[in-house]
């Protein structure tokens, strides 16, 4: 009998002995006697000794203190994970352990709370996007894009997928990982150098009988809005392709929902809806579609449906259309996904319930105002081109360092580093992912920022460009 005690392990002393007696053995080691002895560990592994709870918290907190996090409102980094206000009520609800420590709701009758909350997530997102079907979540926007590309290929039995050239490098990389084994080719659609919007003429040239899907984002990676959406969707459909649109859900109080312009599939990142940035994970992959049999049959991921009791007509919720999924279809499944981001989905459901139609609209308007102000302020900075593109933006915009007449201007990395010395994270450098944009960066402004903070940003840009420390 072992003398080791741990507060997470209830079986001790007498109970352990009783259990061993039931099994007719003296020592737990005997339970491992069927394992070939050469594989049984004989040495202690290089794992630290256990610590008490307070020591663990102390050690982690000391390590995390090695991170440098700017003061509130002093980060203008976005690019797929954005700072937004998180209402406190969300945290108290989603941290209830009835939600937090449940498994996937396999046993519907005892898991109605989770099932209804996920059904409500699907429903709230469906209203925002204006499409009837939303799955119970994907891992993140990037993997949702990968799955969307595969889906368009399965449905159309075609093998090329068109994406905007100005896309998040991380998202592009994940798309590549997902599509390459399936033989789906990813092709870039060019952009208008002045507006930053999709080059529709180029799109037309690229479309052919191999095009499975056309993908664009609204707003795009550079924060640019695409206004000729109806035309783009028609062009895609005329070529027999499915149209996939990527969204930032927090923009949909003010931006037209893709369901309204006939998008077949809508994907996006739900992190803005109540989830902290957490160094980029967990996120929330949104996946929505039209109500068409051919699409529904091919959807990846879990879906919750409303039904009624077998006896009587009481309303209830179950996981449904499971014949697509891995535990039933195995190698013929539409995807291998099972665990998703359910908890982040519930977070988004609470967020959208709190904001309501008025809140999501007001929020969108405030963001537009703040970004507009930031754009104007940075525009006034000598030597800085802001915004980089002329088309309207939502919450992000590019800036670039103008080529100097006489002296050699600093690089964007120099400028960002100098600004960081003032305690500000001014933007994401774009020089490596999009060298053709010059010395450019992506700046994000949200409702977390104030005029004062934006002013500090513009002063910091000015000083950094002038070479002042």
């Amino acid at each position, binding site marked *: 009998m072992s003398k*080791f005690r*741990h507060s*997470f392990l*209830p079986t001790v002393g007498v109970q352990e002995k009783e259990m*061993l007696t039931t099994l007719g053995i003296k020592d737990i080691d005997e339970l491992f006697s069927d394992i070939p002895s050469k594989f049984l560990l004989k040495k202690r592994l*290089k794992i*630290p000794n256990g610590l008490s709870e307070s020591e*663990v*918290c102390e050690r982690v907190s000391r390590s995390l203190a090695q991170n440098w996090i700017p003061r509130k409102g002093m*980060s203008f*980094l976005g690019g797929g*994970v954005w700072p937004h206000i998180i209402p406190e*009520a969300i945290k108290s*609800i989603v941290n209830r*352990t009835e939600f*937090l420590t449940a*498994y996937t709701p396999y046993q519907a*009758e*005892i898991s*109605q709370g*989770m099932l209804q*909350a996920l059904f409500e997530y699907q*429903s709230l997102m469906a209203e925002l996007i204006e*499409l009837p*079907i939303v799955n119970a*979540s994907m*891992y993140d926007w990037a993997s949702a894009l990968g799955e969307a590309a595969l889906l368009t290929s399965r449905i159309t039995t075609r093998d090329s997928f068109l994406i905007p050239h100005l896309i998040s490098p991380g998202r592009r*990389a*994940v798309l590549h*990982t997902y599509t390459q*084994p*399936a033989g789906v080719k990813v092709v870039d659609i060019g952009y208008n150098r002045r507006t930053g919007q999709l080059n529709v003429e180029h799109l037309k040239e690229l479309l052919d009988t191999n095009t499975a899907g056309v993908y664009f984002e609204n707003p795009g990676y550079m924060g640019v809005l695409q206004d000729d959406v*109806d035309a783009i969707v028609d062009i895609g459909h005329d070529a027999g392709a499915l149209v996939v649109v990527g969204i930032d859900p927090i923009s949909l109080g*003010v*931006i037209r929902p893709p369901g309204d312009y006939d998008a077949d599939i809508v994907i996006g990142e739900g992190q803005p809806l109540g989830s902290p*940035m*957490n*160094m*980029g994970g967990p*996120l929330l992959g949104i996946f929505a579609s039209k109500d068409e049999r051919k699409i529904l049959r091919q959807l990846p991921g879990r879906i919750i449906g409303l*039904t009624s009791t077998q006896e009587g007509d009481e309303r*209830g919720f179950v996981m449904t*259309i499971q014949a697509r999924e891995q*535990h039933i*279809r195995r190698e013929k499944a539409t*995807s*291998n996904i099972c*665990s998703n*981001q359910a*908890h982040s989905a519930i977070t988004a459901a609470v967020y959208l319930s*709190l904001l309501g*139609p*008025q*809140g999501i609209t*007001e929020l969108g308007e*405030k963001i*537009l*105002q703040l970004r507009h*102000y930031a754009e104007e302020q940075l525009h006034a900075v000598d030597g800085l081109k802001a915004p980089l593109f002329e088309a309207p933006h939502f919450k992000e915009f590019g800036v670039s360092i103008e080529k100097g007449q006489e002296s050699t201007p600093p690089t964007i990395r120099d400028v960002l580093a100098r600004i960081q010395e003032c305690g500000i994270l001014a933007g994401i450098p774009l020089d490596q992912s999009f060298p053709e944009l010059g010395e450019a960066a992506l700046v994000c402004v949200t409702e977390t920022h104030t*005029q004062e903070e934006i002013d500090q940003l513009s002063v910091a840009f000015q000083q950094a460009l002038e070479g002042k420390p």
Partner: protein
Amino acid sequence: MKFRQAKWNEPLIFERSRVGAIGYSLPDPSKTIKKLLPNPLSTIPKNLRRKVQPSLPELSEPEVVQHFTRLSQMNYSIDLGLYPLGSCTMKYNPPMNEEIIKDPNFAQAHPHQDCTTLQGILKILFELQQWLSEITGMDQHSLQPAAGAQGELAGVLIIRAFHVDQGELEIRRQIIVPDSAHGTNPASAAMAGFDVVVVPSNKLGQIDIQALESAVSNQTAGLMLTNPNTLGLFEQEIETIASIVHKAGGLLYYDGANLNANLGRVRPGDMGFDIIHTNLHKTFATPHGGGGPGAGPVGVKQRLAEYLPVPVISFDGTQYYTDNARPKSIGRLHGFHGNAAVLLKSYAYIIRMGWEGLHAVSNHAVLNANYLMKKIESIKGFSIPFAPGVWRKHEVVVSAKPLERDTGVNARDVAKALLDRGLHAPTFYFPAIVEEALMIEPTETFSKAELDRFIKALTEIAEQAYSDPNLVRRAPQNTAITRLDEVKAAHPRTMTLSWRMLQQRDQEI
């Protein structure tokens, strides 16, 4: 103990909506900012403005809190009691971890920050990679995958990348999986573009070696296996299995869903496995959140390290950094650094348990599983198929076939009757090689008293099945709702996947 789950008849949040109610408070931009752009929508092209507000519900904050709190009370969770889903490893999730991730030095960290400003979290992730390698007997890990299935996909893509490099992918088209494998195994193999070849289990519930020998060929890319397998049995011929696959030029992939029994006892890397994924939301105690987020780090032996998904967290002697310069990598699986918060929780769990603690985890998990097997064995109506007398590891698979044959009460009915007694049901009808399967994984979290409550419940249910089978078939009655109509849920004419669909249907009628 008489169990009765809360039942609130809580309407959908949309049905609680009242025009004009608000549940938010947002800071106002300054007067200057508002004056500069009094009509913000004017900056959006007309064609792209939202014309009609989204039909979201309108509620005050207390009403939203009440609604979701009521829903939460209609949900079973690990903090309420035994949750013995087989291969799901539902163990205690330390509350400590939920506090740790709230640290603003983590929660407010942005993934695009320069590595020099993220040294604290990068060091933690680096150590986690090392510990996972040490625990599993691998050489290197990547923390990219956001879930077990994505970890599997990573693993199979590594197999693919390896054969591409060997110039053999054209011929090596097959991934072998046992008939008892988790459904994700064949699904992941297919996503990576492979054909799936299934090998049967023998009478002892282990891979049939002869069948394996005839299944492998020069077309074999690899074998996906979990050990202990889904019957809870340790694959005793693992050395032979590894040698057969390796001799044929294939790689061995370890499905880490069943790792809990191995902690501190055996390591997949020592048994010949080349690749592994680990479900942190199972073995390493992070909450499953009702379906995720999880995390599925993937680890490999040195010869495969160059294929790991990027970024890998590396250390150059002075600085920790995200290492993307791996030209042969299978690429990224996540937009950023994987499910970082989940990774942080697992890190804290490992140092909370320590080496001795992890060892004790597997001891108690295996003791609990065998205790249940021994007790259930003697309940009339249940049998323990495969390998009588062989100790199980993390889980045990029970067959309700005798009960079904004698009384008509099947595994599903038994599961539902367990719910009525305030216990979660085991995984049922899996693995498919067991008729009327109930797959039970108690984990180390539960005391003998809780296991005895489960045994008593099974005994009662079996007795009831023999005396009044219809009573069992009507279960559950004590949960928030009785059995649901799954056919109606999936039928094209009645299928309702959102409030929007429900409204549209109502309009049509």
